[in-house]
């Protein structure tokens, strides 16, 4: 317990965690408006133009991941390897990137490029910041590898791939080499960028779950590494089976995508092994990492299915792909980033742990509702567009989207509640006081005879754990 509290992040680290949280909440808010516009595109075309809303929504989502990844990396480095020089300046530059880019996109000065919506000049800033992060990770690689060699590999590689993906994407936009070549580079750069941040976040997660003195996951076997590297580098071609790219790239992509089923099976196995844990039993961040596991499984499974050419022909370019990417982004990236923040909050409070588990479940349920609706609309679009022109099938597809604004609102609200709970825990505002209240209630219950009265409020976490052991506390008590 004492060791845990010594690891609590300082005020500067908490400030670094605010930025991604604001980006996430803003993305959720804009997403609700985009949800309404997807049902009624004619609504407020002047004031709320999709020309601004769509890139702003995508930018806020991407900037959540980038700022969250940066914050998580700095916190892990500080916890494991000491000081991160120039953190204040680094945070200022991240704020400049987010505020500056959002302002320019909102006033119609974005790049007009999918996913990398910020003005191309801003890439130099964010690319530079991630280069600094990569250098720092490489400098502390030995320390990180001692904690978890697999985690260190994924984190280091992921950060490098983020920089390479950004550089590739920007050089294509600046050089404008023509549509056919641009399509290949665009997908390759985007896949590298996304693969980079996913690898880095999984690496951070592996490093974060290790308690002081614990040894984390060792490097995977050589053959599993070769398989992972092949899949990481080659799957990009499955995004454009129908576009005029060389068939060799597409064939390699198909093979790599099908081999990703091995990763799917490994994740299934992990989940089966972890079955049976109850909320509040493990550390507070456990709920986040388990949710990330479940949604990783869904993301890989749907990715493998979508890479099958005849399914790809029907669903690619429809809202089904939005469901796939939203599921990955919220279900995996959001859970990993918030889980890492919670891990280093240094609170050992079962009541907080149970509340977080509940909030994570609500987000999961809301996310499933949104994704299922998008998937159905996407499937309808994919089937109808085979025979009908857009003007004829559009209104039918929009019918499927009618519940989307309501589901989107629920998702935004649950994300808001989850962020509030995480934030209160980080600030240490509500948790202890509420836990004392819960314990007072439990003490008054007839079945709580095994719980000793509270003498010292500093030991609330341990008392609650004791109350759970004797069966005197339930999730309902905590709520």
């Amino acid at each position: 317990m004492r060791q845990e509290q010594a690891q609590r992040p300082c005020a500067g680290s908490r400030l670094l965690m605010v930025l991604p949280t604001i980006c996430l909440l803003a993305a959720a808010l804009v997403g609700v408006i985009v949800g309404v516009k997807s049902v009624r595109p004619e609504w407020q075309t002047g004031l709320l133009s999709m020309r601004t809303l769509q890139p702003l929504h995508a930018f806020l989502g991407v900037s959540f991941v980038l700022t969250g990844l940066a914050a998580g990396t700095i916190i892990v480095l500080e916890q494991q390897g000491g000081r991160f020089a120039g953190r204040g300046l680094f945070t200022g530059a991240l704020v400049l990137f987010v505020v500056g880019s959002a302002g320019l996109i909102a006033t119609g000065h974005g790049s007009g490029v999918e996913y990398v919506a910020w003005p191309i000049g801003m890439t130099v800033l964010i690319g530079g910041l991630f280069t600094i992060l990569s250098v720092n990770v490489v400098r502390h690689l030995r320390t990180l590898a001692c904690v978890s060699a697999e985690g260190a590999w994924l984190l280091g590689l992921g950060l490098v791939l983020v920089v390479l993906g950004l550089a590739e994407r920007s050089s294509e936009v600046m050089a404008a080499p023509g549509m056919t070549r641009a399509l290949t580079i665009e997908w390759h750069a985007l896949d590298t960028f996304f693969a980079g941040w996913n690898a880095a976040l999984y690496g951070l997660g592996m490093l974060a779950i290790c308690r002081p003195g614990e040894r984390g996951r060792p490097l995977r076997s050589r053959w599993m590494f070769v398989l992972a590297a092949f899949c990481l580098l080659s799957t990009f071609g499955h995004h454009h089976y129908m576009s005029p790219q060389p068939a060799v790239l597409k064939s390699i992509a198909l093979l790599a995508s099908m081999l990703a089923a091995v990763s799917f099976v490994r994740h299934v196995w992990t989940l089966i092994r972890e079955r049976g844990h109850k909320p509040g039993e493990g550390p507070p961040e456990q709920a986040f990492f388990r949710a990330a596991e479940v949604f990783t499984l869904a993301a890989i499974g749907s990715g493998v299915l979508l890479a099958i050419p005849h399914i790809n022909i029907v669903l690619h370019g429809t809202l089904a792909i939005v469901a796939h990417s939203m599921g990955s982004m919220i279900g995996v990236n959001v859970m990993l980033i918030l889980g890492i923040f919670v891990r280093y909050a240094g609170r050992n409070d079962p009541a907080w742990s149970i509340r977080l588990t509940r909030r994570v479940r609500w987000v999961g349920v809301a996310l499933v509702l949104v994704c299922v609706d998008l998937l159905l609309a996407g499937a309808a679009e994919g089937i109808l567009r085979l025979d009908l022109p857009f003007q004829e099938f559009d209104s039918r597809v929009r019918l499927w989207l009618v519940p989307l604004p309501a589901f989107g609102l629920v998702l935004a609200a649950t994300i808001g509640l989850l962020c509030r709970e995480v934030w209160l825990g980080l600030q240490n505002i509500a948790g202890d006081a509420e836990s004392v209240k819960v314990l007072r209630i439990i003490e008054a219950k007839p079945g709580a005879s095994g719980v000793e009265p509270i003498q010292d409020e500093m030991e609330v976490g341990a008392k609650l754990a004791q109350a759970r052991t004797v069966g005197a506390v339930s999730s309902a008590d905590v709520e």
Partner: protein
Amino acid sequence: MAHGRTDQAAESRGQTRQVLTRIGVVVAGYLVYVLAVSVLPLGARAADALPANSDAQVLLGQRVWRASGCTSCHAIYGLGGHTGPDLTNAYSRMGEAYLRTVIGKGVRAMPAFELSDERVDAVVAFLKHADRTGVYPTSSAFAPVFGVGR
């Protein structure tokens, strides 16, 4: 005791080297792909269908397409927004006159774009170029697996 510490340090160094090697291998693989993309004749099919002197106009069209935020609502080969139709084959399916009218006057949720004639010509040339590169979406789920050429 000291011997144990030396072993541990050696193991730690070996592990770090292995981590660095694995990062290097993947980055090298990435560079091979970038090299492959830059040497493969990716533009060949499109170039067959388009006179060489219109290249500059197509590139200007691509820039106008991006600057006007067309990607927010429209996609080409599935990459882009979902509010409006995918425009890969809009040129052949809707016709040039229809495209010019829609760009200039707007339609339903799409606002009118105040573009100069030169810029409208460039966007139309860009869409014509996209149209000639292939068919998307296809008219059958049992189309040739790796795309339909023109």
